[in-house]
């Protein structure tokens, strides 16, 4: 897995590529923790380059969503396709995490 965090003002884009699973999820947790601690108001998780996700990977994204929501932040997932999309649909996360939120132009994809 490869991930990149890009901050633009109040907005953060977290690009996640490859495989987010039980093996790789611990690698991204410190970044998730930092986003929560810094109370980033708007986080876009770009998963267009994500090949595979499992329940551990989903747990990381849901955790980010819930913890940001607790302080009034917004988390949105963009670029879902193929296997990750199948998982998000099954777990009914698409409607919660993929809803269009207020974000300035030029962010995400």
């Amino acid at each position, binding site marked *: 897995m490869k991930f990149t965090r890009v901050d633009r003002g109040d907005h953060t884009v977290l690009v996640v590529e490859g495989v987010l699973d039980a093996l790789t999820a611990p690698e991204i947790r410190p970044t998730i923790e930092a986003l929560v601690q810094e109370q980033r108001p708007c986080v876009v998780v770009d998963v267009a380059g994500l090949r595979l996700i499992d329940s551990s990977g989903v*747990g990381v994204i849901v955790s980010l969503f*819930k913890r940001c929501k607790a302080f009034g932040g917004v988390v949105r997932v963009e670029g879902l396709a193929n296997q990750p999309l199948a998982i998000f649909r099954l777990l009914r996360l698409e409607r919660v995490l993929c809803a269009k939120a207020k974000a300035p132009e030029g962010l995400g994809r």
Partner: protein
Amino acid sequence: MIRASIPGRLEYRDLAIRLVASACKLVPRGTEDFANEVVSAFSEALNNVILHGSGEAAGEIEIEIELREDRLMIRLMDHGQAFDPRTVPRPDLDSLPETGLGAFIIQSFMDEVAYTGGTPNTLSMTKRLKRATNR
């Protein structure tokens, strides 16, 4: 029949998943959705064996994949602690759970799931192709 054996460690997850993904392509009329669902279920089943079934203590994990014209069957065998995914309660999806989703994914995406604890523990999963009446 396709047979493989991997050490019970997460580092070998991707290798096993790629094997199953490749096998899905050999199923006649297998679709991308079919492959995505099989790979997702297998991925969770493997996690269960490695994370809940004693991991390395489980020793080698044996994988058998059987291809039929209308279905794909996977058997996962290990010698660790028994863990029957069918006994895990269905998660409350509305509460956005962060854990406890693996067994639900397995049972939702596969048509038949059977488990026998013992030596070895055997998880059998079958995925059938949907009938082509709507195509």
